[in-house]
């Protein structure tokens, strides 16, 4: 097994993505050199803000030098501290951990990516990879309102493949990502032209709705799940998914439709730090 010790890395660049969301480019090049392969879309890292906390974060990108990017929404103590950091500040990083999105480079497949809020993070990484492999894809990005839509400029080169939507209609399609997803699939050209593969990341209730929609239409889905975790190493057990006893850190974070349909926890429950099951 790879040795993946906690390593302090510098923040190279900070991008304001939208209200409350920033991306951090990390100087992980040296760390990367010790690893066997580059991280893949869907994998996550543990990010330590010294004196505050350590949290799991999906990678939202990796450049050709091996510098990784994370996208952080200011929602809690640790993410607030992250937002207060400047270029050159140090962060502790462990990883990358977990499995990744399984992609096919077949030209006969249309990939549909559905991201809600900062769930867009691993999907951006995936979209870049799909583009590099000249795969066909459409990405649905949703937020409550225009000011919460993740930075459009950074993704301008892929904009022809992106459907933006806002719940209040202030930008793009009016409605939720699930509405936009249905709308897209209902279009005639989708009837039987190509095999469709769906990838989703975002609030779990949203992903659950996407899952139901895919089940109805018999489409293959991969969803990125998030749970509380201490280790990321398959030891603490807090990221367990019942009733299969699967671990988000090891068996996930990406789960396919076949597995999701057996997980009664999906869209419903998670474990808190004490080990109690609580509603999502």
């Amino acid at each position, binding site marked *: 097994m790879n040795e993946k010790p906690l390593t302090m890395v510098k923040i190279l660049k900070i991008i304001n993505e939208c209200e409350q969301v920033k991306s951090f480019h990390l100087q992980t090049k040296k760390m990367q050199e010790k690893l066997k392969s580059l991280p893949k879309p869907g994998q996550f890292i543990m990010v330590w803000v010294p004196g505050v906390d350590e949290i799991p974060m999906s990678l939202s990108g990796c450049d050709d030098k091996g510098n990784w990017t994370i996208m952080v929404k200011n929602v809690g103590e640790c993410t607030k501290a992250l937002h207060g950091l400047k270029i050159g500040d140090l962060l502790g990083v462990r990883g990358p951990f977990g499995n990744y999105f399984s992609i096919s480079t077949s030209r006969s497949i249309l990939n549909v990516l559905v991201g809600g809020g900062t769930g867009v993070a691993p999907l951006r990484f995936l979209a870049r990879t799909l583009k590099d492999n000249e795969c066909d894809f459409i990405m649905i990005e949703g937020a409550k309102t225009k000011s919460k839509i993740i930075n459009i400029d950074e993704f301008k080169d892929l904009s022809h493949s992106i459907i933006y939507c806002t719940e209040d209609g202030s930008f793009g399609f009016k409605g939720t990502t699930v509405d936009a997803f249905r709308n897209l699939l209902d279009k005639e050209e989708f009837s039987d032209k190509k095999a469709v593969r769906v990838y989703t990341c975002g609030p779990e209730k949203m992903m659950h709705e996407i899952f139901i929609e895919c089940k109805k239409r018999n489409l293959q889905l991969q969803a990125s799940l998030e749970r509380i975790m201490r280790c990321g190493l398959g*030891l603490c057990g807090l990221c367990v998914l019942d009733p299969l006893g699967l671990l988000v850190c090891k068996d996930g974070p990406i789960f396919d439709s076949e597995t999701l349909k057996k997980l009664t926890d999906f869209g419903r429950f998670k474990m808190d730090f004490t*080990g109690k099951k609580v509603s999502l």
Partner: protein
Amino acid sequence: MLEVNISGLNLKSPLILASGILGVSNSLFKRIFDAGAGAITTKSIGPNPRKGFRNPSIIEIYPDTFLNSVGLGNPGIDYFIKEIKKTKNQGITLIVSVFGDSIETYADVALKAANAGADALELNISCPHSKVSSIGADKNLTFKLVKKLKEIIKIPLFIKLNPNVTNICEIALEAERASADAVVAINTVEAMIIDIHARRPILSHGSGGLSGRAIHPIAIKKVFDLYKVLKIPIIGCGGIFEWKDAIEFFLAGASAVQIGSALSRGIDIITKINEGIENFLKTNKFKSINEIKGLSHEYELQEVPEYE
């Protein structure tokens, strides 16, 4: 061939899941038991829900060596009773690890766990980054606590020993004198890691417990020493990653072993280690684990020479 009996408890394999690893949910117990574990030890359960320490709380510091300070995070015995019952309904051999903050609370948790159907209890008096370790570091307190619990509990009681003491044998002997059914040796070794760039200890609690590969020889030595003085069985614990590591424990005197950190390599490592142990026994024409228990003691070791 892999069966062992510890204080009346029949196990299909000598490999027991160590406390604190993947230990709060019935679905994981089942997965680990199905992979071939002889029994499951739960995460230590206390009188009340407890969050434990903030992250970083578990990190890998060298390959297969870990430092943790979870701080006894657990959902509390009242919540946990339903997991015990569910697990027992599935026929899984279950050892509930318990702790408290006084003899009374230890007794309360232990009684509730036993009544819910636990097959045995493991007494955590040794978690190195919490107050319970003070009991395990004191032979008189250990005696008092074990004696009290043995008066009220009918199922086997195992004592998890603290290696961070001057004389582990002295404490184990007091546990034995108080009628403990077995000892588990060892809990994690007190340790710390400081990041030179952050210039601070990495774990949020600062101090933690070392587990995995690095502590295997420490654990072997403790089991070897304990075997010389104890009559009750010893369950070896510390750094088992391969079948050889387990065999070493048996040769040192362990009747069974616990596995924890190695689960980071995946739950199926249990199946592989079971196969390895069985192969070793067959190849060397042994019929049971019991036959190799303590064999390393048959050799004379060189004594410290007198001054000439």
